[in-house]
């Protein structure tokens, strides 16, 4: 393999890796405030992309994306309020089954609204064939958009959780829910906020990635599995570790084409998921003690 090909694979890996990381962060945000895995996370990505494509018929691209993200956030809030909020003290199993139900529901609704066809937003800048050359490596401008938007999103989330009072309150809920209530924090609102936030970042990810990967009514499931793998690989609840784990998975996948047929690409993520669950359930960067304290 020559160096150009190597770099080309690397770029592809990083692109997919950042998307996986964003989906994983969506998992982590909800996991941190509620202790459950929201299996409808992939559907937020699909919903964001699909809505943006539809709105793009009437609106310019930035406005369409912004509206799609806001609409998905509202959907996220409504889901939490109708399905999760009123449960008094639900078991983890019950919550997980509910989120799986929600994901099936969203998928079927999407099938009825948008049909089974494949859709995509246009490239943000340039076209499918335009590329930026850095040395001998050719990068699609959309790749830069994906990596750029995702990085900005991660940085903004970090600032939000570290320096704003709502961010602190969400962290407080995830560290010690009883103590948060004793500070007068309404933990139920924080759970709603976590759904809104994950829906929003999922939708934005869906928009930026759609020109490259295309989206379909059931496209969320595959992404959710990858995102889940990454979340577990990094250590559940740890968003910075998710970024690292996302890049690892993306790059591994992209280099796997080298040694085996493309069709087996997904085998990599599933094998990693199984391997990590057997060998190190706390994740690469998670601590064993913390994992033992977790309900799930």
């Amino acid at each position, binding site marked *: 393999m020559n160096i150009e090909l190597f770099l080309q694979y690397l770029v592809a890996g990083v692109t997919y890796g950042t998307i996986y990381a964003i989906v994983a962060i969506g998992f982590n945000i909800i996991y941190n405030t509620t202790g459950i895995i929201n299996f409808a996370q992939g559907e937020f990505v699909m919903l964001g992309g699909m809505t943006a494509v539809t709105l793009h018929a009437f609106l310019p691209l930035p406005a369409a994306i912004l509206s799609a993200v806001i609409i998905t956030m509202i959907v996220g809030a409504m889901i939490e309020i109708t399905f999760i909020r009123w449960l008094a003290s639900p078991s983890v199993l019950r919550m997980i089954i509910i989120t799986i139900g929600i994901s099936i529901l969203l998928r079927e609704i999407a099938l009825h609204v948008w049909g089974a066809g494949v859709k995509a937003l246009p490239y943000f800048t340039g076209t499918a064939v335009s590329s930026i050359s850095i040395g001998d490596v050719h990068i699609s401008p959309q790749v830069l958009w994906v990596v750029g938007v995702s990085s900005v999103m991660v940085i903004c989330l970090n600032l939000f959780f570290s320096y704003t*009072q709502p961010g*602190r*309150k969400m*962290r*407080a809920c995830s*560290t*010690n829910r*009883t*103590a*948060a*209530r*004793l*500070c*007068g*924090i*309404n*933990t139920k609102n924080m759970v709603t906020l976590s759904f809104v936030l994950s829906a929003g970042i999922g939708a934005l990810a869906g928009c930026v990635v759609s020109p490259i990967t295309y989206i379909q009514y059931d496209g969320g499931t595959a992404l959710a599995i990858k995102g889940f793998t990454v979340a577990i690989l990094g250590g559940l609840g740890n968003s910075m570790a998710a970024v690292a784990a996302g890049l690892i998975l993306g790059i591994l996948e992209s280099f796997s084409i080298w040694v085996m047929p493309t069709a087996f690409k997904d085998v990599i993520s599933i094998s990693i998921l199984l391997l990590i669950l057997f060998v190190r359930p706390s994740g690469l960067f998670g601590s064993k003690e913390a994992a033992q304290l977790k309900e799930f």
Partner: protein
Amino acid sequence: MLRIKNLEAGYGKLKVLRRISMHVSAGEIVTIIGANGAGKTTLLGAISGLLGNRAGEILFEKQDIRHLSPEKIVSMGCSLVPEGRQVFSTMSVKENLLLGAHVQQRRNRTHDAQQDLDRMYGLFPRLREREQQLAGTLSGGEQQMLAIARALMARPKLIMMDEPSMGLAPLIVRDIFAIIRKLRDDGNTVLLVEQNAKVALGVADRGYVIETGKIILQGPAEDLLSNREVQRAYLGRDLDAEMRI
């Protein structure tokens, strides 16, 4: 300030508290002493709203708070320093305190927490030194101070403390109780639950003795300190035996 009538509470079918009646007036330190499993923590859980399953009457400033959520009760000015500190261990000392200011910010959008922060650092200079440190890395005594300070950030009318002396060295217990006394001198009202009856009765104005979910004795702290029953059961002195010698 706080008046409880015939309070019954428990977990599921298990009834822990049986017809508890008590009151706390403004400006006093009231202590509840009792052995392990007597129902002290349950009582505070019932008052603070953490325990949903309760019957009877809990009046805070003449309002019935029995059906309110803990969030609402805290915002009314009744704060609990929970058993075992329960600080936000992965967050810094300052962040813990700022979270305590949450109800103040809800009441008043322009509330400036800095003033309250300075007040807390004045009361607990150790916390100022550790401002940026993660709360989980503090010593037990410092965590207890942080838990008290966090509750005070809400400027509560009544502050309830669950076993502030638990697991602390005697010297630190003395510090913590000096602060509790200082809080009362500054006009705060304190409801103190303690297993360490000697220290608790030392600072308190009045006390209640609770045993298997019932109040068996009550009165001014000095009276309880000299009470034979209390001395035998909670202070480890048997006056009758000492008389015979």
